[in-house]
């Protein structure tokens, strides 16, 4: 009988109040800029300090911003936070001018790339080739595709169980360091490996 009462009460409260509340918490992100803007019909609220939160009600204006301790966070949301997938990681492999030859420094990165993929399986990998602005656009699109294919070739040889590998070529269109046309810039001769 007790249970039945509880159920009735719950139903009653649903009928009486169709309102809802949401709690929004800003967490540590290891980035310089970390903020959110919450907008409701009646107000706007900015959270820009980590481990602060606001309770947003559908009927009242947002309440004050409060702090949440690490212990409280752990207790209420620890399992959710722990179940989050490992964030993606990005590697940059650099090349010698007008070639598909990797710099010796970049060659040393491969064990790390391998490990990062292993830790993230199942995962997708994007390989994006780039070139600096020496030579024609067409030449650079082709060159950066060759660079990307070279990395793809290595990846396939690793026999990791990657779900999807995509290869793209941006040529000279997306420089890391913007330059005038025809400028040799080592940091633009690169392949980006994005592991998701």
């Amino acid at each position, binding site marked *: 009988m007790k249970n039945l009462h509880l159920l009735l009460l719950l139903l009653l409260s649903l009928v009486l109040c169709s309102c809802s509340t949401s709690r929004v918490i800003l967490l540590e992100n290891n980035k310089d800029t970390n903020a959110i803007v919450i907008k409701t019909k009646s107000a706007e609220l900015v*959270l820009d300090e980590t481990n602060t939160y606001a309770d947003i009600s559908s009927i009242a204006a947002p309440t004050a911003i409060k702090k949440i301790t690490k212990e409280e966070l752990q207790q209420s949301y620890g399992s*959710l936070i722990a179940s989050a997938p490992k964030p993606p990681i990005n590697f940059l492999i650099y090349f010698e001018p007008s070639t598909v030859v990797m710099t010796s420094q970049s060659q040393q990165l491969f064990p790390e790339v391998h490990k990062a993929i292993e830790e993230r399986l199942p995962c997708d990998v994007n390989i994006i080739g780039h070139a600096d602005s020496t030579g024609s656009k067409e030449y650079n699109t082709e060159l950066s595709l060759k660079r990307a294919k070279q990395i793809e070739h290595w990846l396939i040889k690793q026999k990791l169980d990657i779900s999807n590998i995509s290869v793209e070529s941006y040529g000279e269109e*997306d420089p890391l360091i913007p330059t005038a046309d025809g400028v040799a810039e080592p940091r633009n001769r690169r392949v980006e490996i994005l592991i*998701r």
Partner: protein
Amino acid sequence: MRCIPLLICLLLFSVPVWADDIAIIKSLDGSVKIKRAEQVLIAEKSHNLQSGDILITGKDSHIGVIFHDGSVLTLKENSFLRVNDFEFKPIENKFKFNLKLKKGAALFQSGKIGTLSPESFIFEIPEGTIGIRGTKFLVEVK
């Protein structure tokens, strides 16, 4: 008669036959369903999400996905979230990201859209919207 091939082309390309993959399912616990148009699919690791998918987590369940821009979304048990829209085409400067949490709790860490085009991101909750500036946050709808 000359226009017939053109008509066929128009017909072929005006219907989106192939929906784009927008995210990969990275982690999973318990029972998670994906509602895609009229279909209800059982979520599985390494499978992909599409724009418009609704994620529904059961009791003692969770799902973690990574979008193509590198954003990480994790849903707690008993949650209901719709991926209203997602587009990530940095070379064409096209970005769209709209999520709607109707129930439950979600943890969100923003990726490249958060950096390249934060104004394209909207996270809806029943009471309003959340916008970002390079962010990791958690929402619980009670």
